[in-house]
């Protein structure tokens, strides 16, 4: 994939003994691909759980326990429970219950057997994946800190030490080395934490507990470093080709503080291979691939490629409005039908007009009566009588024959003559009444659905 130059470099911490041989610049080693593998806490937890079962020793109760009696049930009828009872006599034990898990001195429920499945199989690839994850996690400072190691004074993670460390023989020198590289606080923490275990374990050959310190990984077989470091409390050693998950992720928790020697660090690439190069030591094994190559979601989301095709955020969610009745609510009506206002206005005006027109018409028809009455009132009693007669007479004439105008000057027996204007007025009203009644008559006919009207008229004796 990428050249060694593309891989980040890890500086090798130099020790005093080392300085003389090398040049001014400190050595640096490229980071092996193992440390960039996917970190899978789920796989590590699973594999760790399974593997830690493999060092178990079987336990079981004796298979004769609780059955070393010849007890037999007394049966019913003796006012005792039917549990098998110890036969014989002369001792407390006689007649006591036996065999049952509820009985004193009886056999337990489901006596534990040695053929319980103590060990667990784990697929090789899974085991390797777990180890690879644990190694990768050991290179992440936050994980190592979270696991509880004191690495505040460590110059760099992963911590690589020059090969001179492998030659260290004395434990005192080993301690000095630790101090030089800033790993001493962690070892100190482990030493200080030695305590007696709480609980029954102390009586079961697990008396002391302590924290874990650094794990020193070396590359050369038979390095003196093993003997030097092994007596330091908390410190553990491992050969690079035999890395143990139980040491790399103690308790199933990722992020052990690991101190690599340069030789071991360089060997990692050949042991585990790279992402595209098969491992040399593990047959056909390639480092596991992560599910997501780029797991930085925030970066992905805010990248140009994504944002250029993304639609704007919909902040206001449109909710459906409550339905209001347009027939009652004018505003809602106008929203649906803008013409409604004009229509309503026109309808109101038309109605007002219609009412007015009707009123006018009625007034016109009723007006003559009132006028004559006023006239009537002006005249004297004597005249009133004759005017009244005149009026009735004209009406009678109208009803009998077609509209025939009364000749002015219809002679009254009375010597008093009505004024011309009054007579005209009366004639006017009479003709108006006449025409009104005629038109009403006509509409009565035309609007009626009476089909036999022809016959009816003949029967009436009236003509149209």
């Amino acid at each position: 994939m990428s050249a060694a130059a593309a891989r980040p470099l890890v500086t090798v911490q130099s020790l005093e003994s080392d300085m003389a041989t090398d040049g001014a610049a400190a050595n640096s080693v490229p980071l092996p691909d193992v440390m960039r593998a996917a970190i899978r806490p789920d796989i590590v937890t699973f594999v760790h759980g399974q593997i830690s079962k493999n060092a178990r020793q079987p336990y079981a109760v004796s298979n004769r326990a609780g059955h070393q009696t010849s007890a037999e049930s007394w049966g019913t009828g003796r006012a005792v429970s039917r549990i098998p009872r110890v036969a014989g006599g002369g001792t407390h034990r006689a007649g006591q219950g036996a065999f049952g898990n509820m009985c004193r001195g009886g056999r337990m429920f489901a006596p534990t057997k040695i053929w319980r499945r103590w060990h667990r199989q784990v697929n090789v690839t899974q085991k390797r994946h777990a180890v690879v994850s644990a190694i990768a996690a050991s290179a992440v400072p936050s994980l190592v800190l979270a696991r509880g190691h004191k690495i505040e004074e460590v110059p760099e993670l992963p911590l690589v030490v020059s090969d001179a460390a492998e030659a260290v023989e004395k434990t005192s020198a080993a301690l000095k080395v630790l101090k030089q590289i800033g790993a001493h606080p962690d070892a100190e923490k482990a030493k200080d934490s030695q305590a007696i275990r709480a609980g029954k374990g102390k009586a079961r050959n697990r008396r002391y507990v302590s924290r874990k310190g650094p794990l020193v990984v070396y590359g050369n077989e038979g390095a003196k470093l093993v003997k030097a470091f092994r007596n330091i409390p908390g410190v553990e050693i491992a050969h690079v080709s035999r890395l143990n998950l139980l040491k790399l992720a103690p308790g199933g928790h990722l992020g052990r503080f690991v101190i690599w020697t340069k030789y071991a660090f360089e060997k990692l690439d050949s042991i585990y291979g790279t992402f595209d190069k098969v491992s040399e030591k593990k047959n056909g094994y390639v480092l596991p691939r992560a599910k997501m190559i780029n797991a930085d979601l925030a970066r992905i989301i805010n990248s140009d490629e994504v944002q250029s095709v993304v639609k704007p955020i919909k902040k206001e969610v449109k909710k459906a409005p409550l339905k209001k009745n347009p027939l009652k609510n004018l505003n809602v009506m106008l929203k649906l039908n803008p013409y409604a206002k004009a229509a309503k206005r026109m309808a109101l005006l038309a109605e007002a007009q219609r009412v007015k027109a009707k009123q006018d018409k009625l007034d016109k028809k009723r007006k003559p009566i009132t006028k004559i009455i006023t006239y009537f009132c002006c005249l004297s009693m004597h005249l009133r009588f004759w005017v009244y007669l005149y009026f009735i007479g004209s009406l009678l004439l109208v009803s009998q024959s077609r509209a025939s105008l009364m000749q002015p000057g219809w002679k009254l027996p009375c010597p008093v003559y009505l004024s011309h204007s009054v007579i005209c007025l009366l004639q006017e009203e009479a003709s108006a009444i006449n025409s009104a009644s005629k038109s009403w008559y006509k509409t009565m006919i035309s609007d009626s659905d009476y089909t036999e009207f022809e016959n009816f008229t003949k029967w009436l004796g009236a003509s149209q």
Partner: protein
Amino acid sequence: MAEKGGQIVPESVLKKQKRTEEWALAKKQEVAALKEKKSANRKLIYNRAKEYAKEYAAQERELIQLKREARLKGGFYVNPEAKLLFIIRIRGINAMHPTTKKIMQLLRLRQIFNGVFLKVNTATVNMLHRVEPYVTFGYPNLKSVRELIYKRGFGKVNKQRIALTDNSIIEQTLGKHGIICIEDLIHEILTVGPHFKEANNFIWPFQLSAPLGGLERKRNHYVEGGDAGNREDYINELIRRMN
């Protein structure tokens, strides 16, 4: 990283600002365009509604005039046969023959006092004949159609029953047939127009109230003094009581 008055602003923040600006601008333009379109639409709707009002009034007057004319000459003017029916289901759902049940489903009358409009043709008439004891139907007038659609009009949008609170809802579904407002819809239903089928199917079956004042006698036909079957123009009176 760009400098901004001495403070360093990360590029991602700048990019986001630019993006939000662009979106805001696009949205503003969209809103303005929509507004314009809407106002143009309003004018169109206004004119159409006016036209329809005139049309309805003219139709009415024409009918009266023809009748009067005929009467004057001593003849008769027979009303043209109705094109539009309004059916109301008046019986419940229990104990129905499966075939009639199916016909009721086809008519979209699945619930008691559901109402639908229907075109009149041989097919529908025959269907109605089969379901006569379960429904009452007749010829609705303008007021009935208007009031039903305004008060209880719901449309089928995306298979959902959406209230007709805005003309845009109608335009969305029926715009392609030229029906863009509620007045258009009423006109299409009343004068069984060329897109009656789509317009009617758009309208969800009306869910009417039980009639104020009650029904006479569900189990009998209208002509026997009951309620079922064809009651022609008297359906309007029933609609007034049920709407």
